[in-house]
């Protein structure tokens, strides 16, 4: 099976080279060759299926922009953001804020959805991997901005007040689907991709916006 894949690939690579002949293969040829390489190289393992590589238009457009070394044009970016905005599921019970203590636990955990996890492994939010959050936690990443004082800096003193509504909704939406606000954000789409449940998203919103959360001290 493996050998067969390799032969198929060599033929594909050779074909791509012959097609290009004297000239170098075009970017489209290289995209095709890459797709063939991906298909022959990755396999299911544990709970992870190879089909998770069949990704959506958002990721495809952002990957292509990264390869080209040019950001998406504004119209495409706006269209991607709009289509992601439509996927946001707002809290069915109208409660945007859950329990910040639970949110902190989720923020700490980077577990779940790898091939060494099982289906019962609770998914973590992976938040501290990239963000500063509670100041007491010194082991934080810097790929994303600091979220320390997130609510305080945005003037959220009462998350239930009408004045806070827009910020509360933004926070929920950003965690649910970060690409709704920034087409090629590095941030996962926690709600949209099923990494976090609705209740867990509410706990994370509370971590960021609850005035009692250590984030806002």
């Amino acid at each position, binding site marked *: 099976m493996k050998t067969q894949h390799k032969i198929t690939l060599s033929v594909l690579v050779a074909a791509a080279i012959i097609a290009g002949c004297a000239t170098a293969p075009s970017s489209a040829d290289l995209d095709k060759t890459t797709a063939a390489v991906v298909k022959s190289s990755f*396999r299911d393992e544990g709970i992870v299926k190879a089909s998770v*590589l069949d990704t959506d238009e958002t990721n495809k457009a952002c990957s292509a922009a990264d390869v080209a070394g040019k950001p998406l044009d504004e119209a495409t970016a706006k269209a991607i953001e709009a289509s992601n905005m439509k996927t946001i599921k707002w809290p069915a019970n109208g409660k945007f804020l859950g329990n910040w203590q639970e949110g902190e636990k989720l923020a700490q955990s980077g577990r779940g959805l790898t091939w060494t996890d099982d289906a019962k492994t609770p998914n973590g939010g992976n938040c501290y991997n990239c963000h500063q959050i509670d100041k007491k936690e010194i082991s934080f990443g810097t790929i994303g901005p600091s979220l320390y004082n997130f609510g305080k800096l945005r003037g959220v003193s009462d998350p239930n007040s009408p004045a806070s509504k827009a910020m509360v909704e933004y926070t929920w939406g950003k965690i649910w689907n970060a690409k709704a606000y920034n087409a090629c954000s590095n941030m996962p789409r926690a709600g949209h991709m099923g990494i976090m449940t609705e209740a867990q998203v509410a706990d994370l919103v509370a971590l960021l916006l609850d005035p009692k959360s250590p984030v806002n001290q």
Partner: protein
Amino acid sequence: MMLHRSISLLTVGCLLASAALAQKTAVQSIEEYRAMLQDGNPADLFEAKGEDLWKQKRGPKNASLEKCDLGKGPGVVKGAFVELPRYFSDTNKVQDLESRLLTCMETLQGFNAVEIAKTPFGRGEQNNMTALVTWISAESKGMKFNLSQVHPQEKTFYEVGKRLFFQRAGPHDFSCSSCHGQDNTRIRLQDLPNLTKNPGDGIGFAAWPAYRVSNGQMWGMQQRLNDCYRQQRFPYPGFASDATVALGVYLGVNSQGSASVAPAIKR
């Protein structure tokens, strides 16, 4: 925790000062731990085992690997590592060190390359593979990466590797670039090299194979890439698969001129 509680009785000024002190101490102890890592590298043991394995008659054909051509002619080991992956005319493929060793183990020694590739890391012949790559990389220690981009397949593999590097997918939309596409970032406290350009001597591609203190394991580049993909929530990349070799070409060419410190030591 207890300390923090009692301190909270003091003035705000004292609290801030003590928090800064606690933070410094934690960071300092991490720095001390890192400094400790430089005292001795257990990779030496794998290196010695690898050299023995290279010279030892093994496999169904009871032959050594001393006639293996790693790109600089049969039996030439010094300098081979810093030119890999590269194109090999006998296999008509671009191969990295591990995939080239599979070829040699099959053709010279009579091992089944497919079986070895299927063996999980840390078991059977994969342990021998790790020792071999440790020794072979050590023979090029301090030399500068200089991958060929002359053959059309080498150029194609660079471009494929670049596309793989930026491939966003899986439940988290991660790509290699999510962590390794910017300067001066960290995951938790771990510094991340920017691999879209030359990260410099002994960083990124130039720091593997490496001994990992945190789990007491020696890892080659194949295992390093494999674990990146695991954390990316991607499916399993086959050992020595074209995707892993193409990524190696992309990273290796980007590291052109940087010195290899392999075998390195990591947290």
